[in-house]
């Protein structure tokens, strides 16, 4: 079983459907999904924050979070989903999620990025 499939299986157990991929920066940064596709959410990572730091989701909704890092290979670790990503500048990291229940899912930078690293975190807030 690949690591990605394993992460997906664990995510499903955690109440999320999840998938992830990385696209080259040439990919349309503001590409809109097809009418039936997932909602696309743009996120930026930089020292020492994710913007936006809090993302509201609805249970059952499919979303793709497209993340661009501006200045460093920040990490995005989502321990509750057993998923993590390196956010490489010049690339878009895509994280597909489909929460199945309400709650909060925290994420944190796990690549030490300097004085302020400890404050670099965020969360998904899932409502029913």
């Amino acid at each position, binding site marked *: 079983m690949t690591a990605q499939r394993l992460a997906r299986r664990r995510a499903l157990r955690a109440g999320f459907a999840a998938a992830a991929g990385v696209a080259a920066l040439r990919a349309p940064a503001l590409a809109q999904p097809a009418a039936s596709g997932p909602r696309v959410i743009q996120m930026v990572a930089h020292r020492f924050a994710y913007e936006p730091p809090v993302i509201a989701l609805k249970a059952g909704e499919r979303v793709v979070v497209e993340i661009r890092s501006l200045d460093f290979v920040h990490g995005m*670790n989502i321990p509750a989903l057993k998923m993590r990503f390196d956010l490489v500048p010049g690339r878009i990291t895509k994280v597909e999620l489909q929460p199945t229940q309400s709650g909060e899912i925290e994420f*944190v930078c796990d690549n030490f*990025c*300097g*004085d302020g690293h*400890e404050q670099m*975190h965020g969360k998904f807030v899932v409502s029913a």
Partner: protein
Amino acid sequence: MQRRDFLSLSALGGGAVFASGLAGCASAPGGAVQDDFYFVQLSDVHWGFQGPPNPDASGTLRKAVAAVNALDKPPEFVVFTGDLTHTTDDPVERRRRLAEFKSIVADLKVKTVRFMPGEHDASLDRGAAYREFFGETHYTFDHKGVHFIAIDNVSDPGAKIGDEQLAWLHDDLAKRDQTAPVVVLTHRPLFDLAPQWDWATRDGAQAVALLMPFQNVTVFYGHIHQEHHQMTGHIAHHSAKSLIFALPAPNSQPQRTPLPWDPAQPYKGLGFREIDSERAGRSFVITELPVVRA
């Protein structure tokens, strides 16, 4: 003689035994104790930090050095388990802080002082500046029958030990008697203490797996700025207090922000520890000591 609480953990028995006694006295509940040797662990100095969590940031390390020098019996060695300095983007300033730190701890009246990096020292330049001052970031040494292994889980900014160092660890352990005592010194926890606070080592489980066949393994680490004790199987892990500011208990609040300085109890939550080897390194008694005596 001053009364202190201490913690005794028996590696042989695979469990933790909490007890209290008189430090410096070669006795403990349940029978006689052979005081084989003892060393001192200091951690998370963060030299160069400035801010409200420690109004005496430039004085605390010197006080700790004085406190170690004032111990009744000098330790056989001292180890600093990382974050000697507070991080900076400026390579010149990083070296200035490392040099100042090294100069201050040179006043320790102990023959052998060993160092390890933390992520604040080493992650932004993969240990380059640290090695200029203190040498290799991972190494081994032996002391009175105990095999010590210093593992670097910070020079990779992703908090990884890395395949090369894991292979080195494997090769080192392959030469050892699995009944012989092993002590691991490292900065970050080797287990997933609180990944949502980045209190983990990404490939720490591989190191623990390599250590698991050994019957007597004890890990001393830092990073989390507080005393903490946990077992992974029969392996005991003990984190040390900081010498700059205390951090909250794992996952006890939303963020890992420093605990505020208490003017009524300055240096509260800070300190260092004595580690007494017993039964030839098969168990250890840990005595937590303050920076400044009340």
